């Protein structure tokens, strides 16, 4: 499945994930090794299952700086939220083409969290 970055552009020669997290993963065991992992993938079994968003934020807030990859079933409509939670690469699902994801970043799409402007950097996690 095509892999894209947070601009919706294709990634070629991507590294395979060092770790694949299921949505019920417990980060505690992973924390000591965060610095060693170049790519962590987080699985979305269904787009409605939002645990991956919390996993991503948790990893970023605990200092993970590598590539964070969304895999599984998610929607172009969630692209902005995935990016805001710290995902940097996206294994797009067969139902939705990379073009649909790129289109989701166009103007008048996905305004994003309303308080973001006031909280400013305090909300940035990536």
């Amino acid at each position, binding site marked *: 499945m095509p892999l894209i970055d947070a601009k919706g552009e294709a990634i070629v020669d991507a590294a395979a994930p060092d770790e694949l997290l299921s949505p019920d993963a417990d980060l505690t065991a992973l924390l000591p090794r965060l610095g060693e992992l170049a790519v962590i993938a987080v699985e979305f079994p269904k787009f*409605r299952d*939002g645990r991956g*968003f919390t996993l991503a934020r948790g990893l970023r807030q605990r200092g993970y700086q590598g590539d964070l990859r969304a895999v599984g079933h998610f929607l172009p409509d969630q692209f902005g939220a995935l990016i805001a939670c710290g995902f940097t690469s996206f294994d797009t699902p067969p139902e939705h083409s990379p073009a649909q994801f790129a289109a989701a970043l166009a103007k*008048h*799409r996905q305004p994003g969290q309303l308080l973001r402007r006031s909280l400013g950097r*305090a909300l940035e996690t990536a």
Partner: protein
Amino acid sequence: MALHVITGNRLADGISVWFAGEAGWAEHVDQARAYDEVGLEAALDQAKPADAELHVVDIRAVDVTQEDGKLFPVAHREQIRARGPSVRADLPAGVWHDGAKALPPLPSESSTSPFAGIYRYDDYDRDFLRQRAKEFGAQVARRQAGELSEEEFKPLRLMNGVYLQLHAYMLRIAIPYGVLSATQLRQLAYVARHYDRGYGHFTTRQNIQFNWLRLEDVPDALAALAEADIHGIQTSGNCIRNTTTDEFAGAAADEIIDPRLYAEIIRQWSTDHPEFTYLPRKFKIAIVGAEHDRAAVRVHDIGLEAYKNDKGEPVFRVFAGGGLGRSPYVAVKLREEVKLAELLRYCEAILRVYNALGRRDNIYKARIKILIREMKPEAFIKMVEDEYAALPADYCVLTDEIVQAVAARFPAPEFPRQDTGILKAEVLDDRALARWVKQNTHPHKALGYVSAVISLKPVGGIPGDASAEEMEIIADLADKYSNGEIRVSHVQNLVLPHVAKDDVPALFRALVKAGLASDNLGLVTDIIACPGMDYCALATARSIPVAQRIAERLAPRQHEIGTLYVNISGCINACGHHHVGHIGLLGVDKNGEEVYQITLGGAADEKAAIGKIIGPAVPTAKVPDAIDALVNAYLNVRETGERFIDTYRRLGAAPFKEAIYATH
């Protein structure tokens, strides 16, 4: 021999349609083709491709009987789907509007309410809503083009407040913490008139619902509302919903802290929150800042009580895990005190634990209240505290600067009017006025003012419904008498929060003229009722006609009876808050018959309690008798000054059980 028809709802306008074989989908059940067991399977195969072709959703077979060549669905719900709401004979089901009319200018182009206590939008806020309306328009188009499946589209439309109900799409519009300007109410009236069939329904969560939307019109309706700074964002779906509060916020004499500022901050924080928009289940936050809890915070996912600490700073007592529905619980207190700067951080910690651990395998066990009980409150609190402690120190801190910036967007109302004694003099000669003032006004923090409640519960009417004309009349009265401001209460009434006492007689006369002067606030006819099976796809029984019959029966004695909250839900999801009614009624389906379980002793305030079922369910026709019997039992034994709930708390259920079940 059992007969079946095949039915579904049309994607474009949501109306119920009926499969007519080669003729395709018909708009009326009379045109449907009936199938026996043998033919049904092949017919379903024939009908189902419509789903793939994007015309009809939720295709299924329902049982019918045939009389005189006409087809009648067996289930009550399907009868109502086929015909229209039983309580609105003037509104038959089916196509009512082709959506092609040229519309007049929006009220917001010519109406302003500069003094109303709403949060003032700037271009950023307004652009946000316009973008959302456009985004939803694009999502509808993608659904119609097949880029989104129904399964994928559903959560997206829900997050914009769009449900598919029995007769059409329902659009739920948020009224943030129940505060509206007159201009906004006019804009709602405009949507009711031009995109709906002339009315709206105010809900227990301080929202308004329109019942007859065409999906294709929704983006336009949302764009119209955006021009008045209102929206349907997160009024449904598994996300953080509209934050609710006290309908007398900023006005009540017993208020410690005006909660609207914090409710607005929570609204902005929770709107499009990237992490918490696909939660295990919906999530409701309520906040109150008065001694008396008028926001039912103990039956919310998160309940906040704002108060002042020793230093006079605003701080928050935090509750979580309250809720009604299938498993009703009073909330657990997580923290006695959270500082303002930490409010969002603490809420983030709660939501993070819930998002990670809340059950996703069973919709009925997915709310935070279940997680807290399954984990035990102590363990849950510890996890929240650990998560809170692990947050980066600078993450999501609510600085004074942010709070002041949001606060500056609320106009500070002035209350210059003195009480010159006009009202006092007039009530001496006008008993109707005196009774309305006693029943429907609430003490205001400014001496010359009161808050006035406009009851949307006329005896025999539909609780919470208001026509476009009524909304416009109320908007005009708000402009004239209440700084252009209106509140929606969680008991489905409207409030003019700031009325000079001197103006009360004139306001009352205007309400009488408009038929809006029901003097029943808090009385037995001021019933909370969900839309029930007349509209709602989830309901198992009708709520509205039951409310109407109870009100008609008890109206003559309502003032004698005094304070008595009767709450009615048409299904276990408890939108009618039956668990917290002094008398609660839950409509259930028993072998095709609508029957009602009666609970007693519920309360939603600071003495929150879940009502207890008192005995076997009562058939629809017997409900007014049963309520009458409960009231008689109360009147027989009440002591001076005792409300129904006080008598129940003193004596328990025994005299009430006896009253209902001994007469059967």
